């Protein structure tokens, strides 16, 4: 009974925050609604007994990603912040992508065989670690390589755009 109440509270909060992301025009408000949604989903993990996943959800997404997101958003001035309204051509594409995504999610929800098992064992951290470095070692390493590539890409994008004023660099070019 209490679980059901908490579940509907958290799920309602997550859905409401998701709708609010779509409806708000201020980009900082959007970021904070996103954070609300992430915390509510973390609460759902807690409710399921997956403490490790819930804590990691809050630690990584709220503590890391969302802080960086808000940090990046704050660098844009409030007056100059773009009003996020899609153009007419974009609406078609967005609707198409949204429809495909909705269809995929609905189908996957309908076709999953939901089983109501007992709770996972309490020591879930060890289980997750063992399966990451045992059964799923290949995907795990692939993901870490992907993250490394993303990090290198970010460093490449963030490098100083002005070429360094070294003597060998300036030799061949003519200064306008």
């Amino acid at each position, binding site marked *: 009974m209490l679980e059901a109440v908490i579940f509907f509270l958290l799920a309602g909060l997550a859905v409401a925050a998701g709708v609010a992301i779509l409806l708000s025009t201020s980009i900082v408000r959007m970021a904070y609604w996103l954070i609300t949604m992430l915390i509510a989903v973390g609460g759902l993990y807690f409710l399921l007994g997956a403490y490790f996943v819930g*804590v990691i959800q809050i630690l990584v997404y709220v503590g890391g990603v969302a802080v960086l997101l808000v940090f990046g958003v704050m660098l844009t001035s409030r007056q100059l912040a773009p009003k996020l309204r899609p153009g007419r051509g974009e609406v078609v594409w967005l609707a198409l992508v949204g429809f495909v995504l909705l269809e995929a999610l609905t189908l996957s929800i309908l076709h999953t065989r939901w089983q109501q098992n007992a709770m996972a064992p309490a020591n879930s951290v060890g289980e997750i670690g063992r399966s990451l470095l045992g059964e799923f070692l290949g995907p795990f390493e692939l993901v870490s390589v992907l993250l490394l590539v993303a990090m290198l890409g970010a460093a490449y994008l963030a490098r100083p755009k002005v070429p360094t004023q070294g003597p060998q660099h300036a030799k061949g070019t003519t200064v306008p």
Partner: protein
Amino acid sequence: MNQTANIKPQTPLGQAMFVCERPKVEYRGLSLKIVQLATKWGPIGIPLLLRFAWGIFFAALVFVIAFVWVVGRFINPLLPWFVRDVVVVVGLLAFVSIVAIIGIWGERKVSGRIQSRLGPMRTGAWHGWAQSLADGLKFVQKEDLIPQDADKPLFRLAPYVALVPAFCAYLAIPFGVGWVFHDSDVGLLFVLAMLAIEVLGVIMGGWASNSKWSLYGAMREGCQLVSYEIPMGLSLVAAVAWLGSLSLVELGRAQDGGWWSWLLFQNPFLFAAFFTYYIASLASCKRSPFDLPEGESELVAGFHTEYSGFRFVMFFFAEYMGMFAVSAVATVIFLGGWNSPVPGLASPLWFVIKSTFLVWVQMWVRWTLPRIRIDQVMHACVKYLLPFTLLLFVGSSLWQLYDNPDHRLFEGFAAVVRFGLGCLGLLLLGLYFAGAAYGFYHRNQLVGQMVRKHLPGA
């Protein structure tokens, strides 16, 4: 307007110059109630309170101890679980408020001591002990100002977002075996996650104030926290890998039996990891020398420039609760938690004493070291603290590997490996202190060539 302009020259010069028309503050709701109560009972109650301050203090102490004992012994087994939860949460709330109140007073006394002043002396019977209470009363009565162009919902919400997670961190912090609200197997991560959310409130308040000082403070907080979380987490990972658990109760229990079994003294890498954790925790709860988010010398008051009244107090409380929380984590993981230096005297009192000592060191550091610049903060983290912590982690793991019965990797030459690792650890420790000494010796030198040109006298 014309009338006032006519009247002004007629009044004596000395009065007219300094008369400032203050808008009349209208109290509403709860603050009205509090002001009414304070004006009605204050003249009688406060002198009485001060007269019997020590008696009230000891009576409250005895009452709290007796209450906790009675509830734990007789009432708790009879009650349903949610009553126990409510009782424990209320107790934690009281403890945390007392920590914040004593911490704010203690900070002022410590700063006074270090700067050869007295600090607050008048309020209360002894050394101004009631100064924080008086300040709290003052702040509750103050007008709750919100800037006109602020993002009002976010501005109102921000202090709560800072305060509530800082309190939630205490739900997983154990004060002793059995003295914890919820002993989870991911307690350490829970505390870190809650301390990470706290920062979000600071950033929210800084942005919503619509003031450049607040925004600068919030941005500094964001980049500083995201950077220093990594060395903080990595030095904790070294400790967690050593003891093999994420539950704070398990981590504390594993260090039972005298000061030599504390994690701090297990190997030189963990000894250094304690200090890296401590430095990173200073940055993550924005204490000096990393208190750039509220750098008073350049950013009025940083992220809480626009806050007044009780919302300001909530930011303050969140800061002191965060200070005690990171010190508590350091105590449980590195300093043996509730275990006494002599085996067999484990008590929550030890935990409180050790954590209070670490909080005191934070205050000591704050009033001793100057604030460093934001580029120096990032420089210190990314170039020095982060590689150093990675080295510590690798060294600690290798040290753990050589005499592990499950891994016979170094069986033949264990002594050589131990000697080499010991030398490496001592070298790292030496580098640590040498770096600190180097920094102290060059304390007047600026980092960048670019800045040095523009500063006179450099």
